[in-house]
């Protein structure tokens, strides 16, 4: 039933596709993480001049489809002379950079909201107690505030990383030959489902399982002190795919 000769023939291509998917995931994921840390502080700030611009950014990025964002960057920006004539044009010229930029901005927006939510949920008493013990501002941030927020954000952040990995499949629409693009080409050239999309699905499933395991281990490391029965309780709002209006 399964045509193994097609699979064997295409395996190197799938392997290269996997590498592209992983590079996109890691570079966009890390850049998004780095940007989300300061942005989430601003977002959670009580100062409207800090929180509002970040809110507008996350609202727009989370309120529009990623495919539209990707097409605006990839197809749209070269229409503007200001982009074509800028020093950054060599970057925007490259499809991979455009995909990276779109995925980074998108994941930054979601991660910022996840972190901001965790920051806002920091028990005031925790920080007050630390200050009362004479810890400096930096010490409070470094030893009390961030570790707590990180622990609270971790489960949702793990979910976001899996979503980002799935989102990289959209790069197939702008000439980037990642896993799904390889699958689409195999389907186009051989008209077989299992050997094309089925193979791509196996790779994505495997990636999902690996990422889930990594985050489960991270949660074990960071949430060790919590009663396991607490983390097993799942409320309805946490079972949705992406929290948009959290």
């Amino acid at each position, binding site marked *: 039933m399964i045509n193994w000769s097609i699979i064997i023939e295409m395996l190197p291509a799938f392997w290269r596709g996997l590498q592209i998917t992983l590079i996109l995931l890691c570079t966009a994921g890390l850049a998004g993480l780095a940007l989300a840390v300061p942005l989430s502080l601003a977002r959670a700030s009580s100062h409207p001049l800090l929180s509002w611009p970040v809110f507008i950014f996350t609202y727009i990025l989370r309120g529009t489809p990623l495919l539209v964002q990707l097409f605006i960057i990839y*197809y749209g920006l*070269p*229409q503007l002379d200001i982009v*074509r004539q800028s020093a950054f*044009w060599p970057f925007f*010229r490259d*499809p991979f950079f455009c995909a990276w930029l779109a995925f980074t901005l998108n994941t930054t927006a979601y991660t910022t909201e996840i972190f901001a939510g965790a920051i806002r949920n920091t028990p005031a008493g925790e920080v007050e107690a630390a200050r009362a013990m004479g810890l400096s501002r930096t010490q409070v941030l470094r030893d009390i505030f961030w570790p707590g927020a990180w622990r609270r954000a971790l489960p949702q952040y793990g979910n976001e990383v899996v979503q980002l990995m799935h989102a990289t499949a959209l790069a197939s*629409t702008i*000439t980037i030959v990642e896993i799904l693009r390889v699958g*689409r*080409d195999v*389907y*186009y*050239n051989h*008209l077989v489902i299992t050997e094309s999309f089925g193979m791509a699905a196996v790779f994505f499933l495997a990636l999902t399982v690996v990422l889930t395991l990594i985050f489960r281990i991270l949660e074990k490391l960071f949430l060790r002190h919590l009663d396991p029965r607490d983390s097993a309780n799942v409320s309805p709002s946490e079972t949705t795919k992406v929290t948009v209006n959290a």
Partner: protein
Amino acid sequence: MRNTITSLVLTTVLAVPALASDQIRIGVEGNYPPFSQVAPDGALSGFDIDIADALCDRMQVECTLVQQEWEGMIPALSANRFDMIVASMTITDARRERVDFSDPYYDVPSRFIAAEGDFTSYSPEDLAGQTIIVLRNSPRADFLEENYPDSRILAVDREPAVYLELAAGRGDIAFGSSVVSAEAFLNTPQGEGFVQVGDPISLTRAGEGGVGIAMRKNDDALRERVNAALAEIMADGTYDEMASQYFEFDIMPEAARDALN
């Protein structure tokens, strides 16, 4: 508002074409001027569309045109979304493994296009290290893979994207249809400053080349009817009349032209 949405939903869901016995559904593209294009009001036009209409007229069947993205064209045919494809599909051996073709209904060469002054010739040595833009999964892409191993190839999903990307500066030179590149790009304001490079290149080889109408494999009755209707419109001048509205040169395949004379 809710009523509008409900009625829209109903009309869209119920708009499944009824299947009468003498009805043929034809897959067309709409993104390949002057062969097929979509007007702002959604109307399809172009040489492919005219050919489809003329064939249906000769075969005395009622036709429905089904618009389909290029990439999903052959999959949709095999999944029975339509019965044949009239979408400027070049006949190749690779495609023959999945579909049957009618006799070729036109044949135009391919062409390199670049900004004026960038290139004077297109030998593989001249284009080494350059980025060439081409339509993905096409005979032209295969030609580049084979003959331009030292060039970077940017393979895009739709033919107009070849020129969008060239104008956007995402590649150094484009390899496209001589007709589409002229019509959709060089003869438009956006194509200013771009020129054809070198001579036209014919990808026609023994048994391959030329543009045909694709049908599901072993749909022999339909193929014979289409070929007969095609021969008819070529013989009685209908074909030339239609072609003259779009082209200043002969696009009829050489073999067909020879057979007429």
